[in-house]
């Protein structure tokens, strides 16, 4: 099987690429940093004997990105799924509302994923079985004064994947949406929290196990589902006083 991973150069994306390659899947790796992609693709091909191609593209800025991915994936002889561990955050994504920064965060976290999915979906619908995997964040559980544009984009993405799942029901395409808590990656390295961070490799195992299954929305680590429900239940009079 062949999978496209968008956002594969580091963190969760690289962990997924490693896990999928170790299971024998060929890969097309897409990310903005060509040095890391080249290194990761070489490593996966050498260690696991799979075909690992790479394509450097800034999905949030390159309007032709979806088209280029489709062309590159076709050159692999088709593909059986696409995963989107792509994301961007900004330390200044607060209520300063820098319009350029907000637009960039929405582009990377939502618009690019929606555009690429839309472009690749017709091909996936021709496969007997296929999987599309999106990634949300527990940061989008409730709007806060931090990660403003990021959370908004992730909520839009959750809605998009809900619609996509509904549209693909009855087809061979499984649409899955993983809501991630703090992960043990560079992205969350500065986060100091008593809540344990998730292991990207274990997430890779879970996604691999769930391939082609209609699992819908999955929280990882699992306890974030309960924490998210609890957070949604906090009354506004109390929530507005919380600083996190």
């Amino acid at each position, binding site marked *: 099987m062949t999978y496209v991973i968008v956002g594969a*150069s*580091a*963190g969760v994306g*690289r962990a997924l690429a490693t896990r999928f390659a170790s299971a024998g899947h060929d890969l097309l790796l897409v990310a903005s*940093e060509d*040095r*890391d992609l080249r*290194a*990761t693709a*070489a*490593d996966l091909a*050498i*260690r696991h004997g799979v075909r690992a191609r790479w394509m450097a593209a800034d999905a949030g800025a390159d309007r032709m990105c979806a088209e280029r991915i489709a062309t590159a994936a076709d050159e692999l002889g088709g593909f059986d799924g696409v995963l989107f561990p792509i994301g961007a955050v900004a330390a200044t994504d607060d209520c300063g509302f820098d319009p350029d920064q907000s637009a960039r965060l929405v582009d990377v976290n939502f618009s690019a994923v929606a555009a690429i999915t839309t472009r690749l979906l017709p091909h996936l619908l021709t496969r007997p079985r296929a999987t599309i995997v999106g990634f949300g964040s527990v940061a989008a559980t409730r709007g806060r004064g931090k990660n403003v544009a990021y959370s908004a984009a992730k909520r839009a993405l959750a809605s998009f994947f809900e619609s996509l799942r509904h549209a693909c029901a009855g087809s061979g395409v499984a649409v899955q949406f993983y809501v991630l808590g703090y992960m043990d*990656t*560079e992205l969350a*390295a*500065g986060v100091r929290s008593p809540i344990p961070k998730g292991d990207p490799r274990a997430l890779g195992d879970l996604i691999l196990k769930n391939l082609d299954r209609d699992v819908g929305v999955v929280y990882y680590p699992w306890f974030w589902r309960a924490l998210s429900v609890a957070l949604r239940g906090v009354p506004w009079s109390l929530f507005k006083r919380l600083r996190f």
Partner: protein
Amino acid sequence: MNAHRVPATFVSFDGAVSASGVCQRPDRYRFIDAPDPDLAPRIARGGGYSYAAASFGAGSVVQDMRRFNRILGFDPAARIIEVEAGVTLGDVFAVASREGLGLPVQPGYPAITVGGCIAANVHGKNPVREGTFVDSVLDLTLFHPDRGVLRLSPDTMPGLFDLTCGGYGLTGVIVSATLRLEVLPGHVVSIRRFTVGSPGEALPLVRELAGKSLFAYSWHDGAPASGTFGRGFVYQGCLVPETPARPAVLPAYRVLTPAARARLPFSVWGGMATRAFTSTYWHAERRRPETTETSLFDAMFPFARRAAYFRLFGRPGLAECQILIAHDGAEAFLTELRRLILSIRPPSVMLSVKAFDGTPRLLRFDGRGVAITLDLGRSAATLDLLRRVDELTIAAGGRPHVIKDSRLPRDVVAACYAQYEAFRSGRHQFDPHRCYRSELSERLGL
């Protein structure tokens, strides 16, 4: 943008030196070579298996390189492999052994990183046959904030290559390296055991076997009891030829970290416990057949599945001293070492001997002679013994291994390494701001 800095506590593998500081775990190239406006000193860290505090300290930002662990190229026909610095010896073993190849120099634990091997210029089980790690390095990529990304080899910028291989990370961050592999015509090692009464008795045997074996080293009872001290065995390992190369799945082992090593609140070693253990081991070995076979993995990485040995030193920690002594002075050195151990009676556990046949250079642990290694529990008597061993080493013209002894004083290193000053001045010339610092560099005045 640079990698996040997070608070962290570090401890040397021997448990003797610890420090709190900040750590970066870069996972992409721009985190390594992007301009960093902060001029804080820094130091790279691999697996953290140095007995000495070479990868933290001195208020330095620690750059943990374990996420730079990709294999960049592998050419079995040319017998070369290109790896990032955080790739472990176990990773290289898993890939190279599938093609009947392996690194010539393999320290005994698979989670040690290639970057660490280069920075400490480590040796393996048979330096006579294989040299030290620098002999396997064809080229390397180094980053220094004032100098940028540099590609070094014995032919390109050889002076800086020399300073970096065995330079304890003080010339910059080793990002990647191309390494020479050798043919390993089999994956089974035959180990022959010779019983000896003392380390002195082991010397000629180790010298003789080293040149014609995969490895040859000795183990000796180190418990300070006059009747049994020094008895032991010489082990000769030879590859069993024509065992077919097979896909190597790295055998499972639990990675031992410096913090996990020190989890036990006390040390088991010392007094009766050591004597009971060494005696049991000695008798058990004698009951085994003289020749046994083991897998290449277990032969190359004997501590992968015997990590309990280190755990039993507990929180008080361990001490290891490794001295390279010229052949003609080795026997006298061993005699005096025995006298010191039996008079001071430290919690010593074991002693080992292996032969060397290299050329001393800068601060590298290399030369012609024998390396004598002593493992001890950490105590006041141990530190007293090690001070006496320092004097003995200087008098014998020996060379202590800088990476193995976390308390080694500057004056001892300066007295034992003829090129101490050359290393120091070369390093200062390349990096006048001393961007890279560690507890080791400050202690040794580098």
